[in-house]
């Protein structure tokens, strides 16, 4: 492989191409980080450790952190050139998921606010 050090093979999600011990280790590191993030989420949700109005934001941040841990340590998606196709597909998926969820909440909230205004007007 030394002759081809400038050639990057494509990579599949979920497969790590390093030596065996590093793979088992990477899974265990991922598990440890995921457990820490999970416990932190439950603690934040059930205590006043965070400023109460900020709890929702804290939970979302912890969820994204844990999803990142899963992608890197379990699905082995990295930033290397061998991962370009996987990352591009993921980026498109994230875009669609973001549009559907945030778009729905935005539109329905807007609709809801307008409905309230109308019913208040109707009672006058």
């Amino acid at each position, binding site marked *: 492989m030394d*002759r081809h050090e400038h050639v990057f*093979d*494509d990579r*599949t999600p*979920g497969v790590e191409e390093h030596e065996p011990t590093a793979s088992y280790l990477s899974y*265990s590191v991922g598990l440890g980080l995921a457990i820490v993030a999970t416990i932190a*989420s439950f603690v934040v949700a059930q205590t006043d450790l965070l400023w109460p109005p900020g709890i929702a934001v804290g939970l979302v941040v912890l969820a994204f952190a844990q999803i990142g841990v*899963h992608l890197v340590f379990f*699905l082995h998606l990295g930033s290397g050139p061998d991962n370009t196709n*996987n990352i591009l597909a993921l980026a498109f998926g994230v875009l669609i998921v973001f549009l559907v969820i945030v778009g729905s909440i935005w539109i329905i909230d807007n609709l809801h606010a307008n409905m309230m205004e109308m019913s208040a007007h109707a009672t006058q």
Partner: protein
Amino acid sequence: MTIAATEFIPAETARGRGGGGPASTRIVVAYGFWIFLLSDFVLFSGLFAAYAVLADRTAGGPSGPQLFHLRTVFIETMCLLLSSYTAGLGALSAERRRVGYFYLSSVFTFLLGAAFVFLEVREFADMIGAGAGPWRSAFLSAFFTLVGTHGAHVTSGLIWFLYMIAQVYVKGLRPHVLRRLLCFSLFWHALDIVWIGVMTLVYLMGAP
């Protein structure tokens, strides 16, 4: 150096991205399955959006904090996380042709996944028994649709996994069986990622 790169095409010619010829079968299979998983995320995003919009439309019925038991949710989360971990170890063992380790981790993967499904079915049965079924309110319809779809995925994953163990037993660790195992472990990890969203949005953000 790797099984994937030397399977059909020499590593130095298989690099995809427009140069040097096609990638190996395994890379193409896993990439295709990755696209399927992303489309599954899009399916779930619709259900998440519906839940986020309908979460406080309880129609005078019970709300989340009255129905959810965070202890059960924590145990469910740990079951699914450890199941994902052992599934990953199993896939690594299979790639390294360690069949014994593969069967051992498979037992844990299956039992932890089954424990998750059991706890979820029990939670659903308790809620329906208390008169909080999916027909009660828009909140509960969205809840049962979102969490139930995830549970159905896990259940079908368990059936698929039994089928994969049977394939390893009958056919051995051939390249095409290894590719299917790789797809299964991707599926299992993806379900764990969806569960992080369910745990956060449904259970923790709905908690008092």
